[in-house]
């Protein structure tokens, strides 16, 4: 057998074999490699390369090494799912770097991090002032996660005491001009509904690139033809504005009428409407 054919066969065989063996290890995210993951990955790669380039004279020896380097990590990952002790050894523990706003120098030394490293990692998280950090931890993957002090955290609806409406995930009902039946039925809608809605805005179904339905059944569109302006669904805002107008109307009538019972009725209606507005504001406006 000529040498080139040997190498071709070995490479092809090893390519498939490594692919299968690596699958054994499982699909941990490669973007969050621990040092151990890195070592095993490189070892597997080097062994596979060495065998396929015929650097290992005895094929069996090479294969044994390959199987060990893939089998062991697979086994250890399985064990580490089961036992925390194994997990701590293999993946390492997280190290607290900043606690109660104070940098823990000895922990920093333990993690082999210089203060510059810490600052640069924090900057990556958009924290430029270390005094803003209440708690920071070095993850086993080498990334720093930081919890900001309460007053430096981004504003949320809850911290402002704002009541916001509930909204679930919008469903994508048309993709690339093709109607997706499954999301439609998941929303309790059908093709006929979709066609009616598209007719309302005057758009042909073939012209729709993406269409999404939000949790109250409003349709958002993007067309192939970008020159066409599609009206944004305004049913919510419109309903809210109309409600406010009706409430103002009732107040006006209450002032205008001279009959005491009518006055009382209008006043009551306006009061109920203002309650309704208050209750619906989070749903319709926010």
């Amino acid at each position: 057998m000529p040498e080139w054919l040997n190498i071709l066969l070995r490479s092809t065989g090893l390519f498939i074999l490594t692919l299968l063996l690596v699958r054994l290890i499982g699909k941990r995210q490669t973007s969050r490699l621990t040092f151990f993951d890195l070592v095993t990955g490189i070892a597997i790669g080097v062994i596979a390369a060495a065998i396929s380039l015929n650097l290992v004279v005895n094929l069996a020896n090479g294969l044994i090494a390959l199987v060990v380097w893939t089998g062991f990590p697979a086994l250890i990952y399985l064990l580490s799912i089961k036992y925390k002790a194994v997990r701590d050894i293999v993946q390492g523990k997280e190290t607290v770097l900043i606690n109660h706003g104070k940098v823990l120098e000895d922990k920093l030394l333990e993690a082999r991090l210089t203060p510059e490293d810490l600052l640069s990692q924090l900057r990556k998280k958009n924290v430029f002032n270390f005094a803003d950090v209440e708690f920071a931890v070095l993850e086993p993957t080498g990334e720093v996660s930081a919890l900001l002090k309460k007053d430096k955290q981004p504003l949320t609806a809850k911290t402002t005491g704002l009541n916001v409406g509930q909204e679930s995930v919008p469903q994508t009902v048309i993709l690339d001009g093709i109607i997706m039946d499954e999301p439609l039925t998941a929303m309790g809608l059908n093709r006929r509904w979709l066609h009616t809605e598209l007719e309302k805005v005057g758009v042909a179904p073939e012209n729709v690139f993406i269409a999404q339905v939000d949790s109250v059944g409003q349709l958002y569109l993007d067309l192939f033809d970008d020159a066409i302006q599609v009206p944004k669904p305004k049913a919510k805002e419109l309903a809210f504005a109309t409600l406010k107008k009706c409430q103002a109307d009732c107040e006006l009538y209450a002032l205008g009428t001279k009959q005491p019972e009518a006055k009382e009725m209008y006043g009551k209606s306006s009061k109920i409407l203002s309650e309704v507005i208050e209750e619906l504001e989070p749903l319709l406006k926010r």
Partner: protein
Amino acid sequence: MTISAQVKQTLASLKVVQGTLETFSSSGEKPEAKEILSSNSQKIAIIIKDLEKRLSVLEFEEPQYKGF
């Protein structure tokens, strides 16, 4: 515009809003949101009934403006 015509307009707007709320509550998924929507649509229904009653009084007083 007479008062009765104005009240009619308000009545129509309220009916529209009520319809919108009903559609929202029937197509929504979250039970909490659904409940708020349907309870408020019921409140609006009460107001619609009151206004309709008032409208019939107005129409009785000014029969020349009756109808649409």
